[in-house]
């Protein structure tokens, strides 16, 4: 054990300042992440010791290091006094003990009081864990084919699958409730139904229009990249399934949408109830308070669940690679490259647009949204990134809290430009691959169907598979291609969700600015 420093003082206010400033400088030099918490806790305890002993008292403050762990030690002679119990601690010390996660300990021996405080080790940033999980899954994916199949099958079925299911189950339980309270709390912050109408119409029209425009322009530009077989279209007249799915937005009862995780229906219920609450105004002030507090609980709950993200990412991606092999990349390199390129270009375009408009360095802008981007990219779930997105919107992008809560939940569901483009690429590729005969009108039906069906996709990993089967059947793509198409769309889902999360941030910046709800000072920091 090495002693880092040992300070001896007669305790008074000047000594407290000197000790804490010394410790602050030292921990800053060592790049200790919990510097502020440690310094605050030490100062608070020293203040309580000072207040307790009427006469001046000598204290010794030292720091020791053992096995990479730093420990602070405060000793003072005299009568027994424990400044960290509920009875003896000062009011600010009680709050610090309750909130900062530090656990000092006290002992009294041979008339010497001793407090020890282990300084928490630095931990990796959350997105570092996600990247580690991603890289680990790729390595496991490369190793997988060389392991005994019995082993990989067992691990895949009994461990990876279960880990993945546990996370998705937890997320599914709370996702619908979170969306509900988030939209409702966002609406509660609006002044009137006309305010709701103005903001809602603006946000929805922008979001949906960009999706439709993307489908038409992107769908047209992609055509030269594929070789189609023209003739009488082999199109299934199963449009009824798709129309039913889209028009099913009206729920038949208030419980089933939450049980089934139907986000569109949940969103509709939230918007209606929110509008009614605005009309009722002060008569429902307590319910409004309940909604806001419930929203806080739900966000904290989902954030807590998302601590399991690295495990889920490793389990899910490893299973994906083991089940399908990395060879799929060789067969589908063209659509894969197109998907990556289109998402990259569109995201860069939006980042550049905001960067130029608000005069922010594009690298700094991307760095702000990176935490939510990496979650979206590695989980294919905008819901998993939701809590982080809200935090970034408010603390780094300057978007009004109420608008962020309202718009992010809805836009995660409805924003689909890059998802639409990814779907179109998959449909085009497999139409070419299977030699399915098409006609020019076929393209228009592809654009319209993909545009309409995207909002119905649940914002969780694997949600896109729900729609894939219907679309494949609709456009006459043989069932033999379904497995490969499903794998490809799953991979695309990761890429397009990462991109979508960034695009939603950029859209919300411009929308908030248009509505006078953007703090440009925070955005430019």
């Amino acid at each position: 054990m090495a002693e880092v420093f040992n300070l001896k003082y007669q305790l008074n206010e000047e000594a407290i300042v000197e000790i804490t400033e010394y410790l602050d400088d030292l921990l800053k030099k060592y790049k200790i992440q919990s510097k502020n918490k440690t310094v605050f806790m030490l100062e608070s305890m020293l203040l309580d010791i000072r207040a307790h002993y009427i006469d001046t008292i000598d204290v010794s403050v030292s720091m020791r290091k053992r096995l990479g762990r730093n420990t602070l030690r405060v000793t003072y002679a005299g009568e027994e006094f424990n400044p960290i119990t509920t009875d003896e601690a000062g009011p600010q010390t009680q709050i610090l003990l309750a909130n900062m996660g530090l656990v000092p300990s006290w002992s009294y021996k041979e008339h010497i009081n001793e407090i020890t405080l282990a300084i928490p080790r630095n931990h990796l940033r959350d997105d570092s864990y996600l990247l580690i999980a991603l890289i680990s899954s790729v390595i496991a994916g490369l190793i997988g084919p060389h392991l005994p199949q019995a082993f990989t099958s067992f691990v895949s079925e009994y461990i990876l699958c279960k880990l993945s299911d546990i996370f998705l189950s937890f997320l599914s339980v709370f996702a619908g409730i979170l969306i509900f309270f988030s939209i409702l709390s966002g609406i509660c912050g609006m002044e009137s139904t006309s305010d709701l109408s103005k903001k809602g119409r603006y946000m929805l029209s922008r979001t949906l229009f960009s999706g439709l425009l993307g489908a038409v322009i992107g769908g047209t530009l992609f055509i030269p990249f594929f070789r189609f077989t023209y003739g009488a279209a082999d199109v299934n007249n199963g449009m009824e399934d798709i129309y039913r799915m889209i028009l099913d937005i009206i729920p038949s009862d208030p419980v089933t949408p939450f049980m089934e995780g139907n986000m569109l229906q949940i969103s509709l219920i939230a918007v209606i109830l929110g509008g009614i609450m605005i009309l009722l105004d002060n008569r429902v002030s307590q319910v409004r308070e309940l909604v806001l507090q419930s929203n806080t609980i739900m966000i904290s709950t989902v954030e807590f669940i998302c601590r399991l993200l690295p495990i889920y990412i490793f389990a899910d991606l490893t299973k994906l690679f083991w089940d399908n092999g990395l060879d799929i990349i060789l067969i589908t390199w063209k659509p894969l490259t197109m998907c990556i390129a289109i998402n990259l270009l569109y995201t860069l375009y939006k980042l550049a647009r905001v960067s130029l408009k608000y005069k922010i360095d594009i690298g700094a802008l991307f760095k702000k949204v990176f935490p939510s981007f990496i979650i979206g990219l590695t989980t294919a779930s905008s819901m998993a990134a939701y809590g982080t997105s809200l935090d970034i919107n408010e603390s780094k992008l300057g978007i009004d809290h109420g608008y962020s809560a309202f718009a992010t939940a809805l836009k995660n569901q409805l924003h689909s430009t890059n998802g639409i483009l990814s779907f179109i690429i998959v449909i085009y590729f497999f139409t070419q691959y299977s030699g399915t005969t098409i006609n020019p009108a076929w393209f228009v039906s592809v654009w319209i169907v993909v545009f309409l069906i995207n909002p119905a996709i649940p914002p969780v990993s694997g949600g896109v598979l729900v729609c894939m089967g219907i679309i494949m059947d609709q456009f006459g793509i043989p069932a033999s291609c379904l497995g490969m198409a499903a794998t490809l769309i799953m991979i695309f889902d990761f890429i397009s969700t990462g991109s979508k999360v960034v695009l939603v941030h950029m859209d919300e910046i411009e929308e908030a600015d248009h509505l006078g709800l953007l703090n440009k000072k925070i955005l430019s920091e």
Partner: protein
Amino acid sequence: MTATKQQDGNKLTIYIEGKLNAVTSPELESVIGDLAGTEELIFDLKDLIYISSAGLRVLLTAQKIMDDQGRMVVRNANKDVMDIFKETGFLKIFEIE
């Protein structure tokens, strides 16, 4: 640290400038003085560079008094001070504008 106060009926606004630590906190306490009759207490932290546990203790004491007789608001805190409020859990205790 300098602290100046502005009384407007039963509303008291205190402007704090500089660093609020163990040495300067007693000075703030004496400026705050007796809060009898004050129904609204505002701390304007626009020029406050840093606040330590000692400073938080003074604000907390004022908050407890004002909880019984009115309202206390902390406003215009800079990013560093807001980070301290957030990290220490005091963000939930004070009414921040």
